C-alpha cells in the first residue's frame, strides 16, 4: 500500500551502479559463526514507520506487526508449513461445534513490567480488542468480529474463548501479533496512550522490550533477560541472543539496499526486486525471498457498473492481457506470475490445479468481445457498441509506483490490440478513497497478505462490498460457500471449498491475479539465525551477530 516509489527507475539504475561499486569494499567483521553469539546489536532497515501505529489491537499496518512481533507474544504460532503450534498456550481444545476454544496457558510467564500473564490477562486483551471504543481496524476482525462472544477465565491458567457461530480462522488469527497481549496494567491505566505507544506503554511478554522510539528515524528494543517462553518452532529457548535490536526507518528501496551493503544495517526488510541482482553480486549479503500467502497482487473488475457487468467482457480482459510476459519483464523473475486468487504459500487452501488453466489468448479475447456485441470500431480502432467505446477506467492512489506503471503500460498495449481502451487515472488520496467507496471505478488493484484461505471471504463475500470486495461480487451461492468454509472445523472440507472458490473466481473473472509478491530479506554475512515467518517477515528472536562491540 505504499506509494512513494515514483522515481523507481532512476533509483534502480543508480542503486545498481552504487551497489556494484560498493561491492569492492568490505563491510564490518568476518562472517557469522555457526554457533550463536551472545550480545551485540542487530540493526534492521525497514521501509515504513510504525510510530503512532503502536497499538497492535488497533492498527492494520504490516510494519507495526513486523516490529512489535518482538514485543508481543501470541497464544499460538503458525509455522512456515501452516501448522499451528504452541506458544503462550501449551495446548488447546476446540469444542465439536466449533464454538469454544479452551487454551491451557504456560505457567510463570510474566510481562516485562512484572505483571503475570494468565487467563485474566487473555480476557482483558481480547475484550479490549472487541470493545467498539477501541475502534480496532484489524484485530477485531481476526477475533471473529461479531462472531466473538467473549472470553472466560476458567482458572488461573485455563481460558475459554467463545463464538456465537463457528469461526475456523480464529487459530491463525490468534498466531498474529495483532492478537498479542498487553500487560493488563497498561490496558487498565493508559488505554488512551496505546496508539502513540512508547516505553512503559508498549509492554508485552516478548523476547524484547521497547526501549526508545524516535518517530521517523528508529526504534530501539532491548533484550528481555527473563524470557523463557518462546514459540514451539523457535530454534533456541531462553532469552534472545543480541542485547539490542534497532529498527531503522529507511523508506527508499535504494537506501535500504545501500545501507545493507555498506554495513550500516545488518538486515534489510522488504528489499525491492530491482535491488536483488546487485545485492547478490555483493557477496557480503545473502538474499532470500518468500512468496507471500493470501491474495496476490490482483486486479478487481467492478461487476456493478460499466463494461465489466458483462462476464464475457471480464473474461476477454482476463484472456487479453499477457500477464506472464509482463511480470517477467517488470520483476526479472523475482516475483512469480499468479495463477490463482490465493498465493501458492497459503496453507491448507491453495489449489495448484488452477495453474496453466487460463493462458494469454488474444484470439479468444477477440472472440469473446465479438460475442459480447462489441463489434463496431471507432476512428481510433477501439471497439464500440451502440456508439459507446469499449473502455475501462483504472484509478490509482497518486501516481502508481514505477513497477506498477510498467505493468499498466504493458496491459494497456495488450488491450489496445483487441480494441479495448484502458484508462489509468491517478487520483489524490481523498478522490481515490471516494471512488472506492462509491464504486465508481472499473478497476481496482491491491494485494493482501494473510496465510489463511478466509481471505477469499473478505474479497468475494457480498457483505464486504464496497471496498474489500472491490469487484462487487454478489452471488448467494458463493456467499454460502465462503461462510460454510469459515465455520467448518473440518480442514478437508475447507480446502475443498477454497479450491472450488478459486476455480470459480477464474471462471467468473471477478479478480484477475497478476503476481505473487515476495517479501525479500537481505541479511549481512555477519548475522546468523534470521528466520522468515510464514508471511516472509524477518524473525529476530533466534538471530545473533558476530559483530561484537
Amino acid at each position, binding site marked *: 500500500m505504499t506509494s512513494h516509489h515514483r522515481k523507481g527507475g532512476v533509483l534502480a539504475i543508480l542503486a545498481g551502479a552504487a551497489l556494484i561499486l560498493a561491492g569492492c569494499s568490505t563491510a564490518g567483521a568476518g562472517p557469522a559463526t555457526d554457533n550463536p553469539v551472545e550480545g551485540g546489536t542487530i540493526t534492521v532497515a525497514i521501509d515504513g514507520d510504525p510510530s503512532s501505529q503502536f497499538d497492535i489491537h488497533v492498527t492494520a499496518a504490516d510494519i507495526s506487526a513486523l516490529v512489535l512481533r518482538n514485543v508481543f507474544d501470541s497464544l499460538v504460532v503458525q509455522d512456515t508449513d501452516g501448522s499451528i503450534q504452541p506458544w503462550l498456550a501449551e495446548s488447546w481444545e476446540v469444542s465439536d461445534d466449533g464454538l469454544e476454544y479452551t487454551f491451557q496457558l504456560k505457567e510463570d510467564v510474566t510481562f516485562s513490567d512484572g505483571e503475570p500473564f494468565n487467563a485474566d490477562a487473555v480476557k482483558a486483551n481480547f475484550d479490549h480488542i472487541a470493545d467498539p471504543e477501541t475502534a480496532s481496524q*484489524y484485530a477485531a476482525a481476526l477475533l471473529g*468480529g461479531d462472531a466473538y462472544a467473549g472470553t472466560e477465565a476458567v482458572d488461573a491458567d485455563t481460558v475459554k474463548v467463545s463464538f456465537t457461530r463457528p469461526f475456523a480462522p480464529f487459530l491463525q488469527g490468534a498466531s498474529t501479533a495483532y492478537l498479542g497481549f498487553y500487560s493488563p496494567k497498561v490496558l487498565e491505566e493508559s488505554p488512551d496512550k496505546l496508539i502513540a505507544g512508547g516505553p512503559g506503554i508498549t509492554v508485552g511478554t516478548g523476547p524484547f522490550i521497547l526501549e526508545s522510539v*524516535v*518517530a*521517523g*528515524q528508529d526504534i530501539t528494543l532491548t533484550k528481555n533477560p527473563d524470557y523463557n517462553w518462546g514459540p514451539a518452532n523457535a530454534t533456541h529457548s531462553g532469552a534472545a541472543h543480541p542485547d539490542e535490536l534497532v529498527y531503522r526507518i529507511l523508506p527508499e528501496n535504494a537506501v535500504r539496499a*545501500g545501507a545493507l551493503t555498506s554495513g550500516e544495517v545488518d538486515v534489510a526488510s522488504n528489499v525491492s526486486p530491482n535491488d536483488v541482482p546487485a545485492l547478490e553480486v555483493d557477496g557480503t549479503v545473502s538474499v532470500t525471498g518468500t512468496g507471500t500467502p493470501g491474495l496476490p497482487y490482483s486486479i478487481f473488475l467492478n461487476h456493478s457498473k460499466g463494461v465489466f457487468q458483462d462476464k464475457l467482457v471480464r473474461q476477454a480482459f482476463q484472456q487479453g492481457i499477457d500477464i506472464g510476459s509482463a511480470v517477467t519483464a517488470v520483476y526479472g523473475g523475482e516475483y512469480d506470475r499468479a495463477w490463482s486468487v490465493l498465493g501458492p504459500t497459503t496453507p491448507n487452501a491453495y489449489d495448484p490445479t488452477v495453474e496453466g488453466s487460463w493462458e494469454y489468448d488474444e484470439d479468444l479475447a477477440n472472440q469473446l468481445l465479438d460475442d459480447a456485441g462489441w463489434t463496431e470500431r471507432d476512428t481510433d480502432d477501439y471497439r464500440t457498441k451502440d456508439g459507446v467505446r469499449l473502455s475501462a477506467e483504472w484509478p490509482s492512489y497518486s501516481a502508481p509506483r514505477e513497477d506498477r506503471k510498467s505493468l499498466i503500460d504493458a496491459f494497456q498495449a495488450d488491450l489496445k490490440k483487441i480494441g479495448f481502451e484502458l484508462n489509468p487515472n491517478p487520483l489524490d488520496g481523498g478522490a481515490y478513497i471516494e471512488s472506492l*467507496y462509491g464504486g465508481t471505478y472499473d478497476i481496482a488493484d491491491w494485494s493482501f497478505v494473510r496465510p489463511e484461505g478466509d481471505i477469499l471471504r473478505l474479497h468475494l463475500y457480498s457483505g464486504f462490498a464496497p471496498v474489500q470486495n472491490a469487484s462487487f461480487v454478489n452471488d448467494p451461492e458463493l456467499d454460502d460457500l465462503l461462510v460454510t468454509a469459515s465455520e467448518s472445523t473440518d480442514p478437508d472440507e475447507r480446502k475443498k471449498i477454497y479450491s472450488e472458490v478459486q476455480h470459480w473466481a477464474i471462471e467468473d473473472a471477478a479478480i484477475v491475479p497478476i503476481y505473487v509478491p515476495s517479501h525479500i530479506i537481505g541479511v549481512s554475512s555477519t548475522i546468523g539465525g534470521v528466520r522468515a515467518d510464514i508471511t516472509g517477515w524477518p524473525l529476530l528472536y533466534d538471530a545473533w551477530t558476530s559483530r561484537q562491540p
Partner: protein
Amino acid sequence: MAAAVRRLDKQATLTQPVVLRGRVGAAFALYLPRLVGAFIVVWGASSLAFLVLHIVPGDPVDIMLGVQSQVSEGVRQNIREELGLTQPVLLQYVGYLGKLVTGEFGMSYRLQKPVIDVIGEQIMPTLQLAGLSIVFAVVLALGISLAARGRVARAVASLVELIAISSPTFWTGLLLLTVFSFQLHWFPISGGQGLNALVLPALTLALPIAGILSQVLRHGLEGTETQPFVDSSRARGLSFSQLLARHTLRHAALPAVTLAAYIVGSLLGGAVIIEQLFGRPGIGRVTLEAINNRDIPIVMAIVIFAALVFVVVNLIVDAVAPLLDPRLRGAR
C-alpha cells in the same frame, strides 16, 4: 505545500507598512501595521487551509483508516462524531478559530497526541537541517560568485549553478549517498549519529539554493562593478577586497536577501523529500504523513507554522534591507 507557501509570500509582501510620520510612537506606528498584516496573513492562510481541507473529496475517517482496515460503519460513525466531523462546517470553523485564539491546536486524529507535542518533537531535526543548509548555501554561493572572475570561470559557474538548480533534490541526494555513504563510508546515511549524519542531507538541500543565490549574487556583483562609483573608489585607492566588503557585495547582497522568503519555501518543501530519502525525523515527514492521512489538525498547525515563518522572515528582511542599503532608510 510549496504552492501554498509561495502564495503566502505574495500576501506578505502586499501588506507593506503604511508610512507614518512623526516621532511619537514612530516605532509603534511602523510595526503595528506590519503586525496587523502578519495577523491577517496567518488568519487568511489557516482559513484557506481549513476551507480546502473540507471541500476536497473523500471522508477524512475513511482516508485515515485506509483501504485494508476492517472497520464497521458504526465504529466509523463513532470516530467521526468523536472528532467533531459530523457538525456543520461553519460550526467546526468557528470552534477551530476559538481554540486557536486560546492557543489550542487540538489532538492529531491519527497519532492521538496533542498537535503541539507532535510538532514540538519534530521541529528540532528540521531546524538543524535547515540551519546547516543555509550555512552551506551561503558559503557555496559566496565562494562561487567571488571565485568566478573572467569569462571562462563565469561560464563554468553559470553551468554549475544551472545544474545545481535544475537537478531534482531526490536525485542529488541519492547520488551523494551513493558516493559518500555507500562507497566511501565517510558519512552515515542519517539518524541520530550527530553532526556527521547531518552533512549529506543538508548539502543536498543546500545545492539548489546555493545555485540560485550564486546566480543572483554574481549578477549583482557584475552589475555593480560597472558602476562609475567603483572606478572612483578604486581611484581613491581602495583595494579589491575593501571594495568588495564595503560596497559591491553590499549592493549585490540586497537582491539575494529579498530572496529569503523563496529560500525558506525551498527549505520547507525540500525537507519533505530529504527527510524521506535520508530516513530523518522532522516536520517535512510529519507534513507528508498528515496530508496523506488527512490529519486535519496537524495540517492546519503546519500551515499556520509556515505562515508565521514567512511573516517573520519578511519582517526580518524589511528590517535588514535598510542596513544594507542606506538609500532605503529614507523611506522612514
